[in-house]
């Protein structure tokens, strides 16, 4: 397998530009290199993760004891709204894009994204969208109608500060960034794969990013349309959602969730992709059922558009509609379950290495399944009626977003950090971080299932001193602070590793995909040449010509 393919530098993208590699900050700001942009996406996500985390801790301090007056109701409303909005739009999505933009070209043997300048544009418009959102705090008050911003609470007569206008503008801008990145990723995968790599040989991470991008460009216009209508309502006195003048509050719910439910899959599919890389490498086996993992992603993407109204069972849409969305929501559990079994089967009989990355992947299987099961419970309409808008929902969505998305992203961080920086993360401290995070996470959210069943409503700034309420909330607050502490430990680990970490070398994990072929970190030009791709594990074939996949 000594045959290689020469990879030309896309010189036409940068006519007449020479590269000097020592320009400090300016080099980062002006960069169109997909690796620098990927790292900046991750830093952006980290920045907002810290802000969103502080907001979460403020809420937990307020809720630690009954009838607490640490935060005013108005402040509490703004903080839970911004916490949700930040974590979804400014943490989960930029983090997903960070890995996607950094590793998609590397894993398909390309030297750049299809549109490098568009890539840079996407990053910065997302960043400025986030700034605009946070500017609301100094412009008279943040948005305060929850991250899904229900009508008519989002209308001027219920929320008179400019917070919701900033919410709409900020999300429109970052939404444009998300759509352009997705288009960029699709074109990159379609046109810049190394010669010979077929679509059904794509690394699963790239495949899921690819499918996800289609999902995103189909889902975001619905949010953008809703936000545009909301701005028309608020600024020009239109009546889309204003019920007193014949508008419809339900229209907002429909438009938001037609976007909102696919959005949930938008932030989970790429982490699924990361896990589909991590499990095989650390089990020293090929992925079990490549075709099933790939096809179930497509099934999830299609079904994602048929389940939105399960967020709306409580509005009384009628039995037929409820039954349809109940059934479709249960149906989407199937392709997700297929993936879980595929990953389990990948581990079965493998020589498993429990690195920190693999620990997060295994923990994902457990925690995400808990979130998945409570989700299936919600698709049963009477259970939803009973539990909707209680802490049971809060527990469910955090098991999906943290136990799913964040665990997947952390598995990816520990897996790819050596490639991005050239340094290893400390595995021993990593274990401390892992266990602290797991304990903190479960302490915070497991008890919230009970609180929800006891009937504690979400989004209310305090609660009366009912039996168990105080104790369970205190456990939850302690758990949140353990999680907060573990994040500080992670920051220290990253800092320490960059300063004095062990050198990683090209291929510390004995990887099977093309990103491990080049140096760590890769040079501005990723590859000079790439081996001919036959099968979905090109680097394995190159290392083991006698035992190659066909």
């Amino acid at each position, binding site marked *: 397998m000594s045959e290689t393919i020469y990879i030309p530098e896309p010189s036409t993208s940068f006519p007449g530009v020479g590269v000097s590699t020592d320009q400090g900050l300016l080099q980062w700001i002006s960069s169109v290199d997909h690796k620098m942009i990927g790292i900046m996406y991750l830093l952006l996500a980290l920045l907002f993760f810290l802000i969103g985390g502080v907001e979460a801790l403020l809420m937990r301090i307020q809720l630690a004891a009954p009838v607490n007056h640490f935060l005013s109701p108005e402040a509490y409303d703004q903080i839970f709204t911004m916490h949700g909005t930040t974590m979804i739009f400014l943490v989960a999505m930029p983090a997903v894009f960070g890995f996607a933009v950094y590793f998609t070209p590397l894993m398909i043997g390309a030297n750049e994204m299809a549109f490098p300048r568009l890539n840079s544009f996407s990053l910065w418009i997302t960043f400025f969208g986030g700034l605009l959102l946070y500017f609301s705090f100094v412009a008279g008050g943040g948005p305060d109608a929850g991250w899904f911003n229900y009508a008519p609470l989002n209308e001027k007569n219920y929320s008179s500060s400019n917070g919701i206008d900033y919410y709409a503008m900020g999300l429109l801008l970052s939404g444009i960034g998300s759509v352009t990145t997705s288009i960029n990723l699709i074109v990159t995968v379609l046109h810049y794969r190394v010669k010979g790599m077929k679509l059904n040989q794509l690394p699963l991470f790239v495949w899921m990013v690819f499918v996800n991008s289609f999902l995103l*460009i189909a889902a975001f216009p619905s949010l953008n349309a809703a936000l545009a209508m909301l701005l028309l*309502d608020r600024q020009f006195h239109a009546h889309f959602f204003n019920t007193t*003048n014949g508008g419809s509050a339900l229209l907002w719910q*429909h438009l938001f969730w037609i976007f909102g439910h696919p959005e949930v899959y938008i932030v989970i599919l790429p982490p699924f992709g990361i896990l589909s890389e991590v499990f095989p490498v650390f089990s020293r086996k090929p992925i079990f059922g490549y075709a099933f993992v790939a096809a179930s992603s497509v099934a999830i993407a299609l079904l994602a558009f048929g389940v939105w109204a399960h967020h709306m069972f409580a509005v009384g849409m009628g039995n037929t509609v409820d039954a349809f969305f109940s059934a479709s929501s249960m149906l989407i559990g199937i392709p997700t379950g297929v993936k879980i079994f595929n990953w389990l089967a990948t581990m079965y009989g493998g020589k498993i290495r429990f690195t920190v990355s693999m620990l997060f992947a295994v923990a994902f299987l457990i925690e995400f399944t808990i979130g998945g099961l409570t989700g299936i419970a919600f698709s049963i309409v009477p259970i939803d009626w009973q539990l909707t808008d209680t802490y049971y929902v809060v527990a469910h969505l955090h098991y999906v977003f943290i136990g799913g998305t964040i665990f997947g992203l952390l598995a990816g961080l520990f897996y790819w950090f050596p490639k991005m920086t050239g340094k290893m993360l400390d595995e021993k401290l990593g274990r401390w971080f892992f266990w602290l995070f797991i304990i903190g996470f479960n302490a915070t959210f497991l008890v919230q299932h009970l609180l929800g069943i006891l009937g504690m409503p979400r989004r209310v700034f305090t609660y009366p001193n009912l039996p168990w309420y105080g104790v369970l909330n205190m456990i939850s607050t302690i758990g949140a602070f353990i999680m907060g502490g573990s994040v500080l430990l992670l920051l220290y680990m990253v800092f320490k590793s960059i300063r004095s970490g062990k050198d990683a070398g090209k291929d510390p994990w004995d990887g099977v995909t093309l990103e491990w072929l080049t140096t760590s970190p890769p040079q501005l030009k990723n590859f000079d040449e790439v081996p001919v791709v036959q099968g979905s594990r090109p680097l394995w074939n190159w290392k083991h010509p006698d035992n190659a996949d066909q």
Partner: protein
Amino acid sequence: MMKLVVGTEAMFFICLILAFVYMAYNAGFEPHEVEALDVKTTGIFTVILIASSFTFLLAEKNYQKGKIKSLKFWLIITILFGAIFLIGQGEEYWRLINDHITLSSSVFGTSFYALTGFHGFHVFAGIIILLIILTMVFLGDFNHSNSNVISTVGIYWHFVDIVWIAVFTVVYVLPLFTNV
């Protein structure tokens, strides 16, 4: 790439059209508001917009054959047709506003202006793009190279026309056959 852009834009307009239909059935439009629309006049402007798609096709054909002079001619005609459509839309808005049908007068006004306004904005953006291309043609940028810029812009321009056919059908024609 332009196909993907158009795809995501199509979803955007589907949402706006759905909002219009939803409003029609939900709260109900008042009959005099729907009757205030002049199907015949707007129909003429619709034909002009559709014609601009064909003139653009002619421009593209001539470019492929290397006939730069005809390219210039048909591009100018396309831009003119687009502009006439916008003038027609402006005239219609003027008339409706004089009838006291505005963005904030009722749900009909709200959904009508949002839908047609966003479409008009897309036509406007298309005209700007075509003007840029026309300038480049006059500067000689399209004399030799076999660029795919013109066919890419064409995808967008045809898309804007197709959206208008859908909008025209839903907003102007269907109410004639139903009692909303």
